[in-house]
């Protein structure tokens, strides 16, 4: 098989206060895959995400194992390149969007990479078009709706042309229409995606494969539909489907492979 975009092996980590969050995580994500990372609260999902671009785990004292991004080890010396390759979209767009205008915010990442002038303008414009927010370039982010801010947050990362997009709870706090619009955007992107979520129908809709993280360990890695229909696995790791949702019916509708619908920017 090809070089995995993301290769996590034996990753263990304890916070400075002694709380251990990860106990030997192994995870491979290959180019073009869309993978859901599922798990109950406190399973270590966010901790894992912060290791993927080297925000945590650079000090050897309380970490073990390794993370490689397209073969490049996540180390202090490679940090800039790792952060270009791994685009993390955080849960609260107000944390991610801090500049005065949407344009400046989207330009922030590529400008940090040294992109300048017309090339930078093109990147910003393209990233905003990908999420359907091009006409809002000159607005201050705090004047946008929550769903729009979430899409701009995705654009801020797309502008860095990452190899893998890591989304932390992308559907949280979105109304159903915004949730669907974001799904359209994500489906239309030609990029590898790792999506951390509690929203199991969303995972089924967007990600053919799912990984379950529980108490700092990977306990399942399979087709999303197999995981959602494994009742004993689901119950053992506090995963629950919304009332009335039957993954078999949804999968039969072709949710996982639905063609692009109205995803034009």
């Amino acid at each position, binding site marked *: 098989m090809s070089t995995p975009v993301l290769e996590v092996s034996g990753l263990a980590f304890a916070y400075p206060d002694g709380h251990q969050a990860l106990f030997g995580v192994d995870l491979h994500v290959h180019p073009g895959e869309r993978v859901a990372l599922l798990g109950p609260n406190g399973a270590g999902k966010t901790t894992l995400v*912060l290791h993927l*671009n080297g*925000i945590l785990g650079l000090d050897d004292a309380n970490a073990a194992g390794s993370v490689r991004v397209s073969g490049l080890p996540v180390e202090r010396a490679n940090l*800039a390149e790792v*952060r*270009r390759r791994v*685009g*993390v979209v*955080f849960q*609260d767009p*107000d*944390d*991610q969007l*801090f*500049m*005065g*205008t949407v*344009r*400046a*915010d989207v*330009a*922030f*990442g590529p*400008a*940090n*990479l040294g*992109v*300048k*002038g*017309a090339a*930078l*303008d093109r990147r*910003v414009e393209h990233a905003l078009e990908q999420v359907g927010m*091009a*006409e809002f*370039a*000159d607005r*201050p*982010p*705090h*004047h946008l*709706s929550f769903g729009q801010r979430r899409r701009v947050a995705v654009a*801020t*990362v797309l502008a*860095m042309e990452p190899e893998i997009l890591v989304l932390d709870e992308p559907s949280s706090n979105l109304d159903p229409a915004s949730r669907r619009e974001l799904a359209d955007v994500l489906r239309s992107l030609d990029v590898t995606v790792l999506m951390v979520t509690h929203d199991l129908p969303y995972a089924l809709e967007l990600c053919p494969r799912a990984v379950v993280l529980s108490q700092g360990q990977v306990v399942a890695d399979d087709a999303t539909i197999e995981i959602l229909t494994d009742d004993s696995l689901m119950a053992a790791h506090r995963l629950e489907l919304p009332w009335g949702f039957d993954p078999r019916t949804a999968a039969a509708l072709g949710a996982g492979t639905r063609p692009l619908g109205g995803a034009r920017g």
Partner: protein
Amino acid sequence: MGADHGHRLHFHAHSPLHSAPSHAKILALVAWVLLVVATPAHWFWAFGVHAVVLALAIGVSRVPVTYLLKRAVVETPFVVFAVLLPFIATGERIDVLGVAVSGPGLLAAWGLLVKGTLGVLASLLLAATTEPQDLLLGLQRLRVPQQLVQIMAFMIRYLDVVTDELQRMRVARESRGFTARDPRQWPVLARTFGALFIRSYERGERVHLAMLARGYTGSIPTEATRRPVTAHAHIHGSRR
């Protein structure tokens, strides 16, 4: 909700004052305020001249006077202090409407009041005619240190977020039957502000993490805030 929030001081209009370059307006304001402050309080005619200059500027800007006056209430604490001055200051006593007040105190109060009011109105006029972003750009052009401009930019960006948070906490408090009527309830308010401080602090850390994740290395690249060469026509075309 939300659409007009960041612009509580800005008054949308098209006037020569609105389109003037922001750094020129900042310089003019600072120079004029220094002039007003330096004017001795007993040159009553000079303040008349200052007032006329300000009135002309307001006229040109087409910002309604009432709009500025309403926002001038921020001056109230100073007004209270100014009103107290004639009573608490020492010096030669004079009679005003049958009340003996301090002469130098009265003059000082007049000076404080008139200089303060002119300064506040002029500052409000600047805020009403300049978008916050342009103001920051103006400060940048005037070579104000990057760090200071950045701190102000963050303040403008997160002011609404924090006010909304405070608002939600107030609604949640009141929904549980709490109203802050007298000082006995102040400890509750103090805890609210404490919680808000901690939340904002944590948000600051999260923002910093998100910045690091996009390759931040200690300074915001100036390229990011530069206006694109072609975008202006494009934006105006697509807005309407």
